[in-house]
């Protein structure tokens, strides 16, 4: 899904402004659902076969040809809908101590680009996400990542997230945990 060599015009082929607008709104709404901890509604934006993936990142030399974005390697998330549901189930427990008082989440999404694919109702969507987490008195953590999504229109006409690859910027997570979805 490399866009190398393609012009902006070619990228936009088959993608009209209304669709771009609709997908942008889809992603912004998703961000707000996460900020407001509306996790069941968030899960409802997923396709049944969703793959939600945040690989671990390593700093390696350029000459190193090892495939680091690989599903044989350790990850923060390499989830299907079942795994995502289990995570949400934990977050919803009254005994989820690390969420009480609630983490104050902030998801900012930008640089959204939409690309057509071979399949008429599926689009590759690139975006950047900035997540700030504030907890308790003065705890503040920043996560930034580049995302590559596959967004699909289902039989009901609704947009669903079918794939998400999240490339974190940090090799060493600068936080005690990752109690956030990006």
């Amino acid at each position, binding site marked *: 899904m490399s866009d190398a060599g393609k012009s902006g015009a070619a990228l936009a082929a088959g993608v009209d402004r209304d669709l771009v607008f609709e997908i942008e709104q889809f992603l912004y709404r998703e961000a707000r659902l996460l900020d407001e901890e509306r996790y069941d509604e968030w899960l409802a934006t997923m396709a049944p076969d969703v793959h939600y993936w945040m690989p671990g990142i*390593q700093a390696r030399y350029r000459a190193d040809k090892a495939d680091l974005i690989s599903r044989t390697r350790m990850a923060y*998330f390499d989830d299907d809908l079942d795994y995502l549901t289990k995570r949400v189930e934990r977050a919803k427990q009254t005994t989820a*101590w690390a969420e009480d008082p609630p983490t104050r989440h902030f998801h900012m999404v930008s640089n959204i680009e939409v690309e057509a694919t071979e399949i008429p109702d599926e689009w590759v969507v690139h975006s950047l996400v900035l997540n700030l987490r504030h907890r308790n008195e003065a705890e503040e953590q920043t996560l930034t990542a580049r995302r590559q999504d596959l967004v699909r229109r289902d039989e009901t006409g609704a947009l669903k997230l079918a794939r998400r690859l999240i490339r974190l910027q940090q090799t060493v997570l600068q936080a005690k*945990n990752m109690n956030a979805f990006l």
Partner: protein
Amino acid sequence: MSAPFAKGPAAPADLPRDEAPASGQGPLDEAAIRAMVDSEQGWIDRRIFWDPQVYALEMERIFARCWIFVAHDSQIPEVGDFLTTYVGEDAVIVARARDRQVHAFINSCSHRGNRVCFAEAGSARRFTCNFHGWSYALDGSLSGVTAEELYKDNPTFDRSKLGLHKARVESHGGMHFACFDPEAPSLADYLGEFRWYLDVLLDNDEGGIEFVDGNIKSRLKCNWKFPAEDFVGDAYHATWTHSSALQALFGNIPTMKADRSFQVNANGHGWDFGLDFISNAATLCEPEIVEYLRENEVRFAERLGKMRSRMVGSLSSATVFPNLSFLAGHNTFRTWNPKGPAETELHTWVFLNRNAPDSLKEKYRRGVMLTFSPAGIFEMDDGENFEHCTASNAGVVTRRRKLHTGLGLGSEVEHPELKGNVHRNQVNEANHRAFYQRWTDLMTAPNWADVPVR
């Protein structure tokens, strides 16, 4: 009426020990260190989690003298394979050299001290410094010097003395440990009777274990000892701290059986475990893993004996002193790397039996990720505890009261099979006390000869 700024009464000179003035007031001599840990009764001075002087001495007397886990064989299988990690705050390179042996040496150039290797892992022929181009072989020796003729007839330039500072490296079951103290006992003696327990994981199958590719790292604002002691024997916290994850997965909280569980320790290394065989493994939510363990139960027992075989996937946690922890059943190893008195870098790995079916690799990789990684539904609640146990000690008054670590006093038993110091009931703090006994032994001993076998 008294004057508005009149001084209150002077503090009495004979304050009881737990109300004595807090850190930074007085030398950190042997008596002061001994007074911080009462491993008989289980009282721990909070200053050991906060005081920069204590931390500095830990780097000298613990991390620069103990055997520290640096790599598993499977992470660097080929000549030239390397990874970079830490022994205390010392950056080290661990590499497999042409002799096929694993070598570990300080990741800092002998010339001006620049970091030599910046990659976390990879494969190399040599390590070349970016500053002036000195290069080092895979065993750390100096192999090349830019324009070496400049040093011709130089009286202090001796190539053979300018290699990277090497550690001793010894291994057990494919786990390589590094040690920078020539006086330290062998790794085998350092692990002592705990080797017998380590083999529950490292040798329950003839092929031994391998690590899954990759390594997840994170930073916690906690003293390194809180997570290390948590794994050495804090079964007590499991059902409370992790109640949300247990509820989410099973809809209830399991109970631990006091009469069917133990804490064992040797030389400050400790493991708390039940004899349930399967409970840790079951939380990975991958039925194939449980099936694999059940199918091999008899084989494990043939290799390990019935008793040890019950530990293979059981409800348990463990720490090899000072900073290597693991969970049987969950199959994760991790190290707690100190980054100052109030900061720790966690490195985590997933492992499994090398001869296990290939499909299990995927199951363990994902199962550990879901449960015990920074995003894992269990581990998520741990970091919060460790950080706040540390941060609260900023308070000078807070530091004056010792912490109670007395659970399970008097629970030691003689056991016909189990080695080391054995305590009944894994919900216990016997292993904490043993961990801090070892800590005190090392912190007060000028030489290894003064460190008793425990």
